[in-house]
């Protein structure tokens, strides 16, 4: 029934993706994002259409991990998708040209596609010292971002650094690293946090945007609800052990071998909104908890400033950190109260005149 409707499939065949695989991919993507099955059809139409919307990918203060993650996408190979369905016009890591030529190409794309291109950003923007910590071709990344955002249809903040500052913004944040959404206020910005984000999350959102011309439904932090609506713990396969109170106490104990909950080993799955436990990684082979390591909470803002990765969430971080100073401060206040109280008492004792019977009726006399 679907087959008849899908005409543009011929084009995808050209790129070496089988018709079956391609349809499967579109349907899976739609179901992953909790969309009706008709969306899968729409996806396939959009992806196989000839007009490829231009995408510009800018890397700022980043590590390249997000790009690494993206190119490890599968079913179908996402580089294939990007190069053939999307038109990746600029990406420093993928670019064959270099130097002045590259920059000229970028400006050319912007001019030609003014108001239409999609801007993907990974990495944060250093704001201290006028952005000198991170530049491209002598232009600070702040200036570059603002220039490029002007003509963009929408901006995707890819990865935790772009979303909330990430590693470079961790204490003491020497470069003044800043999240994209704090700088761009006049364009739609979608946040895809994760260090790195799950590949299917990236592609899913991209394809959704290409198909419908808008972002999927977002939560309060600008993240697509389809991927970030639940916590890792919510769908974790180890959750039954949590409910039973069975916890691994160390990484090599019997509990760890039995696959018990990693909460006491510092798993942050409870408070981490991401799709790891359902979408998984590396072609849905596994995800950190399945591999025996607790969730780090990498898709949450400020995750690097929230104490040890290996400390249970229910345990406070250094609760008695200031106790000694506090005790001393208390002793100082107490000491000064001791001095003043004793002073007041002494004054009261010294100014006390022995009472006699006449005092008892003084009040009536005024």
């Amino acid at each position, binding site marked *: 029934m679907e087959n008849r409707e899908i005409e543009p499939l011929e084009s995808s065949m050209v790129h070496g993706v089988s018709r079956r695989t391609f349809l499967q991919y579109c349907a899976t993507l739609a179901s992953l994002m909790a969309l009706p099955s008709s969306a899968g059809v729409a996806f396939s139409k959009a992806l196989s259409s000839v007009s490829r919307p231009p995408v510009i990918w800018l890397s700022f203060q980043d590590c390249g991990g997000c790009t690494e993650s993206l190119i490890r996408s599968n079913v179908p190979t996402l580089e294939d998708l990007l190069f053939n369905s999307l038109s990746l016009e600029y990406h420093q890591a993928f670019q064959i040209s270099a130097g002045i030529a590259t920059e000229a190409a970028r400006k050319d794309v912007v001019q030609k596609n003014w108001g239409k291109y999609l801007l993907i950003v990974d990495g944060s923007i250093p704001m201290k010292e006028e952005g000198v910590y991170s530049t491209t071709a002598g232009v600070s990344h702040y200036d570059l971002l603002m220039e490029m955002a002007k003509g963009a249809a929408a901006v995707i903040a890819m990865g935790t650094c772009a979303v909330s500052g990430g590693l470079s913004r961790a204490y003491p944040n020497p470069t003044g690293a800043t999240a994209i959404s704090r700088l761009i206020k006049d364009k739609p910005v979608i946040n895809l946090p994760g260090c790195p984000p799950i590949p299917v999350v990236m592609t899913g959102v991209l394809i959704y945007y290409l198909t419908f011309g808008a972002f999927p439904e977002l939560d309060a932090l600008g993240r697509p609800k389809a991927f970030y609506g639940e916590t890792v713990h919510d769908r974790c396969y180890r959750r039954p052990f949590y409910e039973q109170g069975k916890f691994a106490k160390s990484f090599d104990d019997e509990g760890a071998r039995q696959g018990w909950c990693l909460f006491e080993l510092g798993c942050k799955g409870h*408070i981490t909104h991401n799709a790891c436990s359902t979408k998984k990684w590396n072609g849905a082979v596994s995800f950190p908890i399945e591999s025996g390591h607790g969730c780090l909470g990498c898709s949450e803002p*400020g995750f690097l400033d*929230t104490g040890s990765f290996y400390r249970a969430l229910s345990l406070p971080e*250094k609760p008695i950190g200031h106790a000694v100073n506090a*005790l001393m401060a208390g002793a100082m206040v107490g000491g000064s109260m001791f001095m003043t109280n004793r002073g007041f*008492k002494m004054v009261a004792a010294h100014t006390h005149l022995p009472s006699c019977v006449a005092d008892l009726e003084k009040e009536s006399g005024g």
Partner: protein
Amino acid sequence: MSEFQWLSWIRGVGLQSAVAIFCMGIVWRTMEIYTLGRKLDIAEPRRISGASGWHTIYRRFLAPLGMIHLDPVTYIGGYVFHLGLLIVFFLSEPHIHLIRELIGLSWPALPPSMIDIVTIVTLITMIVVLVDRVRKPLKRFLSGFGDYVLWVITFLPVLSGYLTVHHLLLPYTILLALHMISVEVLLIVFPFTKLFHAVTVWPSRWFNGNTNARKGVPV
């Protein structure tokens, strides 16, 4: 601020600050009270066995003859909720884990089902004691705004702890955060309110017991 950051603040900076205020307050208030000085009794004492400040510290745990019939709610309620608070705090697994982290000492925990029962009994008892405070003209008369606020401040950590353990009503993160923040509020107000009786009750009993013991009355 995300839940993650919120929780991180509460279990980090928030708790550190609360503990600091608590520590400072305890020292400050203890010094403030116990450095005022007292006159020693120079009347020739009458010494009898079984009467001393130390005896009174112990003896005031018990209801005097007949008093328990006059106000059973205060006595029995008082026993139950104090014991309940102690058991829930000192004998539940997560708290022992915390204490071990802090000072390295640990002891066996009660099974979670027992802790659940104690928690529920404690909560119910606290509600009964509150209702008694509101309904009984004497207690209502003696109670101020602070008495009710402090009831809430004592009640919330127990309630939020129970909800957290059982994942009831709200997402776990929020419950955990609420539990910790309720404890932080408790720590902060502790030295400056009648909750400080946990410290002053022992010297108070001793002073009273000592005064009377010198007269030969085992109180």
